[in-house]
């Protein structure tokens, strides 16, 4: 297990390095000069040159990368070209919205998916199993912003029951208001997310239901529910955990769209603004932080998977 942990960690670091290179190079492929952000419409050639020197866009790419990567490793995300304000505090402030949104949305999706997925599997030859599978198919096809718009129309504009968007000025000081603001966004994420998760849970449960050990348990006198409860969940959860890691990362990315629909001051909205303004330090800072999140989730999912299923531990450390 230790050897695996070390190898897995080395892989994490390598992925991060590759991600840094990709983020940096892709942004440099955009047309235009980041120095423009510092200039007014009356800028003289001298001022343009000075601005380029200030943001470093007059230096060779390799030198720009080395300097930037060095800063990133020390977690110095720099200052926005547009506002001149440091990036890190703003990213951290925005995480106050994005992390609860992502985590709550994901957990709600998980609850829906577990219930619906197991039910769809157990009742795969009944009418409700077909209906649930149908809904899951439909959910996968619906764009997330569309779900958001529909929910706003119903609950905010027609019923007036929930706000159409925004986040309280005092953040989490009044948790009730903050959660109210997040209700529709969380449901939006959960609706879309649970659709694909339901299919995984259903497939995993079907595997378990058809398995020899479950039949053995049933033969020993356990009811279907008892057999699933005692033997099925642990076995069924292994493939689901791997998927969950990926899905949690996807949820974070889905939050970008949801934040935009609901005008939430999260990382996603910050990213959209930063891209529109070519604010390289902000874009890079957000991408680095979210990449780190995605890699850590993947790392954690792998570890958890091995903790849940001893067979994986053996085979992996034995074979590699």
């Amino acid at each position, binding site marked *: 297990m230790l050897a695996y942990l070390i190898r897995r960690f080395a892989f994490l670091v390598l992925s991060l390095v590759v991600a840094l290179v990709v983020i940096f190079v892709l942004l440099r492929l*955009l*047309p*235009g*000069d980041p120095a*423009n*952000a*510092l*200039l*007014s*419409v*009356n*800028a003289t050639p001298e*001022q*343009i040159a000075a601005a380029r020197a200030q943001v470093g866009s007059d230096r060779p790419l390799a030198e720009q990368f080395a300097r930037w990567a060095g800063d990133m490793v020390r977690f110095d995300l720099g200052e*926005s070209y*547009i*506002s*001149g*304000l440091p990036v890190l505090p*703003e990213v951290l402030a*925005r995480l106050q919205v994005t992390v609860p949104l992502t985590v*709550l949305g994901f*957990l*709600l999706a*998980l*609850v829906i998916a*577990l219930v619906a997925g197991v039910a769809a599997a157990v009742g795969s030859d009944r009418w409700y199993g077909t209906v649930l599978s149908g809904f899951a198919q439909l959910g996968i096809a619906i764009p997330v912003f569309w779900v958001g718009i529909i929910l*706003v129309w119903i609950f*905010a*504009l027609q019923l*007036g*029951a*929930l*706000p*159409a*968007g*925004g*986040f309280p*000025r005092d953040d989490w000081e009044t948790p*009730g*208001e903050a*959660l*109210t603001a*997040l*209700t529709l966004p*969380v*449901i939006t994420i959960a609706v879309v997310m649970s659709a694909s998760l339901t299919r995984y849970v259903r497939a995993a449960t079907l595997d378990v239901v058809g398995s020899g050990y479950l039949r053995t348990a049933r033969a020993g006198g356990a009811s279907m529910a008892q057999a699933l409860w005692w033997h099925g*969940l642990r076995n069924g*959860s292994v493939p689901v955990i791997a998927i969950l890691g990926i899905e949690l990362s996807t949820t974070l990315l889905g939050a970008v769209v949801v934040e*935009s*629909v*609901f*005008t939430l*001051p999260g990382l996603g*909205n910050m990213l*959209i*603004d930063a891209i*529109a303004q*070519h604010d390289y330090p902000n874009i890079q800072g957000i991408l680095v932080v979210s990449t780190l999140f995605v890699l850590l989730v993947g790392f954690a999912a792998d570890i958890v998977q091995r903790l*849940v299923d001893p067979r994986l531990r053996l085979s992996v450390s034995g074979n590699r």
Partner: protein
Amino acid sequence: MKRQLTLAATIAAAALVLTGCSSGSADDAGGADATINIGSLYEPQNLSNTGGGGQGVTEALSGNVYEGLYKLTDDGEVEPLLAADDEVSDDGLTYTITLRDDVEFHSGDPLTSVDVKSSIEAVTAEDSQSARKSSFDVIESIETPDDTTVVFTLSQRSISFIYNLSYIWIVNDAATDLKTSEDGTGPYTLDEWKRGSTLSLTRWDDYWGDAAKNAEVVFHYYTDATSQNNALISGQIDIITSVQSPDALSQFEGNDDYVVNNGSSTTKELLAFNDRLEPFNDRLVRKAVYSAIDREKLLNSIWGDYGQLIGSMVPPTDPWYVDLTDVNPYDVDLAKDLLAEAGYADGFSFTLDTPNYDPHPAVAEFLKSELAKVGITVNINVITADEWYTKVFQDRDFEATLQEHVNDRDVVWYGNPDFYWGYDNAQVQKWVAEAEQAKTTDEQTELLTKVNKQIAEDAASVWLYLYPQIVVASSDVSGYPVNGLNSQFYAYDIVKE
């Protein structure tokens, strides 16, 4: 694992149920205790108007938190504000301005002439990003003989000097960190700026003038018009400073709960040629293009019944406005004749650099189909704002482009042959220069009216239409500015019932 999941799920479910109860706006107080919630698409980048803060910083802070020596009213008039008196020497080169002696900054420091000097120096400084910077090139020196007197010496006459001063915030010279905090003299202090979300202002009890008629103003920032409209409908905001999507107006028109105000804008949508290049160096070609475009249809398709046609760079709020919409009439036959006369009977083709944001892509498609009727082929090249700045504005590497120009009194750009569009008419340059050095505003107005007519005759650019300035408000608020000239939005007179 299972237990953890169940626990987490329970918490999530409980949180969601718990929150279903409360909603809507909590600010129900009216009158002098009211909180005015304003929706805007223009969040400041930072809070400094010399450090690239952008249009949003003017909207939220100008006149509300910071004040100038003079103010530009919502009707376009210039009135004294922090200046108590001014005197101009006979040669027009020395302006002696006396300050009010009862003004304090929010920090408690009294306003002195030194603050005025340092505020103007901040605008003209080397690293200043103020768009107003070049307006003050004429200042030779600023002296502060005593605490309440500022003496400006100019290198040449500048009739717009007082008008230009109305843009300059007077900031405490001891203030630091202006990108995130403030020290102005206005009727509000900055309460909190929550980036990506809101900026709130609180009434300042020690204000030298009439106190604000509301207790608090909160600017709510949106990235798209739909969210903003939804916020107004669901009562989260009271006013939208500037509606950018006319499609949404139908929800508010004819509804007693809302008022749709059609104010005067200064934003012009331009088809700007590179007048240096063939065939656009030929006045006849430019006029032909102008006459080939049905501007009324264009305006109507984009703004419905709002906005207006203009025949030049001058909006009706500028003193030198005259109606020139018929100088280059929409007339396809005339356009064809002009093209033939210029030697392009079979038309030609050109590339139109089109910013990728609204309304430009739609306008470009419209122009393409209009110009096809007279044999001109338009190749649309969509670019980002950033690319526009480098390619078109700095490098002048373009044939024609679309752009909106927002400021009032900006016809004078046609007097600068080095400007990106390269319009070069010596007579116009002379008039613009003379106008700035005019002895009276009448003289200035007369000269700039001539400029106005001449650029229309020359079809220096195609001025497609003037944007509308649409403020939509809940019908229980009043006292808000409807014209929002130069993006300012004075909030102190707003009353909520």
